[in-house]
């Protein structure tokens, strides 16, 4: 009787929750059915994963119109935000997951790892990422982060034949656990400062409580710890040390997944906490983001130059890409919480969607041409052995460098313009310098592919059909968005800039 009075459950909009339910339910079904039945026909698991991701993406699209543009609606008693920022990032996550599932089939087919496990983990990580970018509750965000991270740890260690894979799994696990603990401590301190873990309640409390009564010391300490957690997850310098080792050691299809979906999830959550929930403290967190951005740009592109392993090269370049996205966050920080904020947030979201596709495409080529060690020499003469593959690689790599008429240029333009609009000229200048240094890395790959001849006789790489499909799709999307930026810009412009 009393229990009934106390626990009246929150009203749940099941239709709006459908994308999450489809992904989680699909992952569980895939695992259970996959382990109860005998071996599936080759490639079926990957296609089932693609179908699950596509259906979930369709549910997101169907929900799109019903979402209020003022960005105030939430689901399950305020646990999840129901806004277009979340919906757009969900689409990016689901599309990337589908691409990585296809890529994984190319890598895993015929090995002992071919089975439902890897695909289940991909979907579980995608579900965690979806929760993370939509979380309106810090504990829910933490749960999303952990769902994502735990799946990543297992995926990184999943190649049991290679000692490097296990080593990278353990390293990622220990450092990731450290970062999660910092993140959680930050949540606890924010709770201590504001008496709530719900972001929308938090901003109301901070708005109404006068400055003297605010517990600023606790709140700032919590903010700092949260920033450490986020900086670790996006691999921003100085919290990037795990990234090169883990990217190199993990199976390449998993690396592609971590670099794409991991970044989307972490930046989505970061935007929500910093810009949406804590705009009153923007003058406190913006300088920190500035420093992280500068360090990531300089160290990321600087260290990428001296690498000889392509996966490490791409890992450091992903650190530098994180720096570019942080520029957008910094720009968003100038006007966070105002009635007419500037486009920093849109620039970050745009960059995330573009980068996710580029990085999956790049690592897809590495799965074919990288050989066992992914050394840069393995790419020598790829242009003469596999010209079409080399063209695909050229497109995605030049896009990462930010060459005009590719999507990478549109993305970089967005964040640099956002920085210039806000008067962060130094950041813009540094970003362009970093882009130039970064271009050297990508040109080095190009030189190896097109101009150099291998020292020894190399067997012609075999290209699995699905991997080829992924590279083709990534390259096509890169060119399409590069030539017609409005394809993506119109979608991004539909995102509301204010969330309260």
């Amino acid at each position, binding site marked *: 009787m009393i229990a009934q009075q106390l626990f009246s459950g929150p009203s749940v909009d099941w239709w709006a929750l459908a994308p999450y339910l489809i992904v989680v339910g699909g992952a569980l079904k895939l695992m259970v059915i996959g382990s109860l039945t005998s071996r599936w026909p080759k490639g079926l698991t990957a296609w089932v994963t693609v179908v699950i991701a596509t259906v979930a993406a369709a549910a997101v699209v169907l929900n799109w119109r019903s979402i209020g543009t003022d960005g105030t609606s939430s689901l399950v008693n305020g646990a999840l935000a129901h806004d277009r920022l979340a919906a757009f990032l969900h689409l990016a996550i689901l599309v990337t997951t589908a691409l990585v599932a296809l890529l994984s089939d190319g890598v895993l087919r015929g090995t002992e790892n071919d089975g439902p496990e890897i695909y289940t983990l991909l979907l579980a990580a995608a579900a965690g990422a979806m929760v993370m970018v939509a979380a309106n509750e810090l*504990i829910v965000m933490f749960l999303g982060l952990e769902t994502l991270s735990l799946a990543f740890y297992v995926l990184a260690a999943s190649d049991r034949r290679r000692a490097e894979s296990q080593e990278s799994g353990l390293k990622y696990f*220990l450092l990731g656990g450290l970062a999660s603990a910092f993140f959680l401590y930050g949540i606890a301190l924010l*709770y201590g400062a504001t008496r709530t*873990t719900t972001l929308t309640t938090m901003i109301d409390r901070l708005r109404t409580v006068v400055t003297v009564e605010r517990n600023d010391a606790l709140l700032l300490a919590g903010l700092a710890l949260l920033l450490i957690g986020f900086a670790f997850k996006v691999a921003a310098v100085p919290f990037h040390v795990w990234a090169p*080792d883990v990217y190199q050691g993990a199976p390449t299809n998993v690396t592609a997944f971590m670099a794409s979906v991991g970044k989307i999830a972490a930046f989505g959550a970061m935007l929500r906490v910093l810009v949406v929930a804590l705009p009153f403290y923007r003058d406190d967190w913006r300088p920190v983001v500035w420093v992280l951005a500068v360090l990531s740009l300089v160290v990321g592109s600087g260290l990428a130059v001296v690498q000889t392993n392509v996966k490490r090269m791409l890992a450091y370049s992903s650190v530098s890409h994180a720096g570019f996205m942080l520029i957008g966050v910094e720009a968003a920080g100038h006007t966070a919480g105002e009635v007419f904020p500037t486009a920093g947030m849109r620039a970050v979201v745009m960059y995330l969607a573009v980068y996710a596709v580029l990085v999956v495409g790049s690592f897809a080529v590495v799965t074919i041409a990288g050989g066992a060690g992914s050394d840069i020499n393995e790419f020598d003469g790829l242009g003469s052995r596999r010209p079409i593959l080399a063209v695909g690689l050229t497109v995605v790599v030049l896009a990462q460098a930010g060459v005009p008429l590719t999507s990478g240029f549109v993305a970089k333009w967005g964040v640099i313009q956002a920085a210039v609009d806000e008067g962060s000229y130094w950041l813009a200048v540094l970003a362009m310098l970093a882009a130039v240094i970064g271009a050297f890395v990508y040109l080095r790959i190009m030189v190896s592919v097109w101009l150099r001849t291998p020292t020894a006789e190399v067997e012609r790489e075999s290209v699995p059909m699905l991997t080829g499909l992924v590279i083709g799709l990534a390259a096509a999307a890169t060119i399409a968005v590069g030539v017609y930026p409005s394809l993506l810009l119109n979608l991004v412009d539909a995102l509301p800039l204010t969330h309260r």
Partner: protein
Amino acid sequence: MTPTTTWYLVLAALLFGIGVVGLMVRRNPLVMFMCIELMLNAVNLSFVAFARAFTDIGGQTAVFFVMVVAAAEVVVGLGIVISILRRRPGASIDDLAELRG
């Protein structure tokens, strides 16, 4: 002198600090792993201390979620550690240095 909320918060901060230092200085993967658990439980202590001070149930509920997450981390972490130790018995974190550059 009765313990106030601050005492518990200071204790939690100390435990968290011990966990961080332990993770940095110890070389056995299992001990490092225990340090992470120590950090999570230190956070739990601060959650409960705050919840008690605010007489708010929210902080105490959070602890349950954290416990579940910690348990899930144990499963994954031990799985990875065991698969490594099976390959190389007695490996410390310094032995795992194939990835560098």
